[in-house]
């Protein structure tokens, strides 16, 4: 167990290194000259070759790529992600302003996805082929195949334009979060609801479920007390994957609902070819991806007694 823990953590760190190196290379290799961009921002049309050359030298842009990566990594580890070319502010400052917004979006969406998927999956399994089961299956199919910008547009039209319940744009208070949360949670909730439903059904046909019935439990009790704990591993692993994917959803959702988070910053960074901003945000994404998956894997291991307490030979 302890060794497994160490190995997973080590692997996660390696993965982060490899992924940031890859993004660093990709971002640097993208067309566009950082020094020229900065010079242009500073001096407008008056930027000349000498100025560009000086900026490139100052930033060390002419050094070999590995040297630049190591330097960047050293800075990043101390919390220095450079200065955004677009906004002219340090990325660390942008982060502290924008990360809370994105985290609120992801956390609310994650909780909603967990709740919806468990309720839908369990209700489906309880109904077992009945009307509720089929209706929920249909809903999950629709939920998993509707693009989030479409969901967002639909919500805005119904709840903001027609009913006037929530503002179209920006967030102020709990209710204004509901539409972004729902938009970002719909896809993962639909996928997870199927995971719950299918795995519960499979578990209900295992011999220990029959033992549960033989113990005198009702179907509902067998479902909740005997079968549900057994789907913890596939459920948590899928949740981890879906939750990390929500960061991609956040890019769209933040833009549609006008949330000043890291997702909308990323789009702007791409449009303005803000390489430093792009690299900083991509690093954030990598750290999020890897650490969420690590956390979920470890949690799943803790949930299963066979992994938590391996049998001594």
């Amino acid at each position, binding site marked *: 167990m302890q060794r497994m823990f160490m190995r997973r953590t080590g692997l996660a760190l390696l993965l982060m290194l490899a992924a940031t190196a890859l993004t660093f290379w990709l971002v640097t290799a993208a067309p566009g000259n950082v020094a020229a961009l900065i010079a242009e921002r500073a001096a407008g049309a008056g930027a000349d070759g000498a100025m560009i050359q000086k900026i490139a030298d100052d930033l060390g842009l002419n050094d070999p790529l590995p040297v630049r990566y190591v330097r960047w990594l050293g800075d990043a580890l101390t919390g220095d992600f450079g200065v955004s070319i677009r906004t002219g502010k340090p990325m660390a400052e942008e982060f502290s302003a924008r990360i809370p917004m994105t985290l609120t979006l992801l956390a609310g969406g994650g909780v909603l996805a967990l709740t919806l998927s468990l309720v839908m999956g369990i209700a489906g399994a309880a109904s077992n082929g009945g009307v509720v089961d089929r209706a929920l299956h249909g809903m999950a199919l629709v939920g998993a195949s509707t693009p989030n910008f479409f969901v967002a547009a639909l919500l805005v039209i119904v709840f903001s334009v027609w009913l006037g319940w929530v503002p179209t744009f920006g967030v102020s208070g709990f209710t204004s979060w509901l539409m972004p949360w729902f938009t970002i949670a719909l896809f993962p909730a639909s996928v997870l609801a199927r995971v719950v439903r299918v795995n519960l059904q499979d578990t209900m046909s295992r011999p220990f479920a*029959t033992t549960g019935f*033989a*113990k*005198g439990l009702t179907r509902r009790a067998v479902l909740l007390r005997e079968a549900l*704990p057994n789907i913890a591993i596939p459920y948590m692993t899928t949740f981890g994957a879906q939750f990390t994917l929500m960061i991609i959803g956040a890019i769209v959702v933040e833009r549609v609902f006008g949330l000043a988070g890291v997702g909308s910053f990323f789009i702007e960074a791409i449009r303005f070819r803000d390489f430093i901003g792009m690299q900083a945000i991509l690093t954030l994404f990598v750290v999020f991806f890897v650490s969420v998956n690590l956390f979920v894997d470890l949690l799943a291991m803790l949930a299963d007694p066979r992994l938590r*307490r391996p049998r001594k030979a």
Partner: protein
Amino acid sequence: MTAPIYEVEGLVIDLYTPTVSVRAVDGAGFHVAPGETLAIVGESGSGKTVMTLGPLGLLPEGVAVDLRGTARADGKDILAMSPSDLSRLRGGFFGVIFQDPMSALNPMLKIGPQLAEQARRYAGLSAEAARKEAVSLLARSGIPDPEDRYGRYPHELSGGMLQRAMIALALAARPRVLIADEPTTALDATVQAQILALIRQIQKEDGIAVILITHDIGAVSVLADRVAVLYAGQVAEEGSAVDVLTAPVHPYTRGLLASVPDFRSDNASGTKEIPGIPPNQARLEPGCRFVDRCDRAIPACRSRRPRLQAVAKGTVPHRVACPVVIAAEGIVTHD
């Protein structure tokens, strides 16, 4: 003879999956009295499990079931019970031991607390008393260091220990009928004998009714008072263990016993398998189910379904569903 405590008659169970429908049980029945051990024998797929557990609602998940006939527990009609009454009956009146303890115990649940919960719900014990009861049941089932095993998960115990835990779980509610569905098939040979001895000991001490479903003719001869031989969802022969094992009449029973090595001394020289395979239960023929594999079959067997006839009087009737052998060997019938 004591009145039966679990009694099934004229049971017909049809199972429907999306691809096939089979008549798993076709007019079979059995009964067992307190203090008695009934063995149900027959090949795999002959309907032993479905016949015994089906009336309790313990049927394969995801299979549509049509069940007819009568089934009584302590005189009460099981088939007319509400789902919640039936659940309570399953939990309290019956105790069930399954074939493979490795898969029959929930890997996510500790063993002891499950026993304690049964004792609390069905034997009406307090939480504290139920815990004590659970530990003493584990001890009684032959599990060493029961205090420690109480908090263990299934994967931390060996197969033999798990089957002992399963037995303890089945007993925790203090059932009146213990059903053991091939309790030793999945276990090592040395452990098998221990588990059978444990079941026999419990049966002796508690005087409960035991239904032992098994392939193991040796186990039948040691444990059973009565035997029912099932073939393709029908009872071919039933009677006291002595009668059925030493004076089998039905060609299937004879074949089954002849296929057991060293069971009867006159057969020690060699064993012989019954040729052929059981019939396709998806296609129902009108005659005897065994006809295609039977060395005594006559043309009439194909059109006439044999009924059980008593071939010996006595406290335990010996009944056989084969008019051909009965007639050919001049066996006197009593009904």
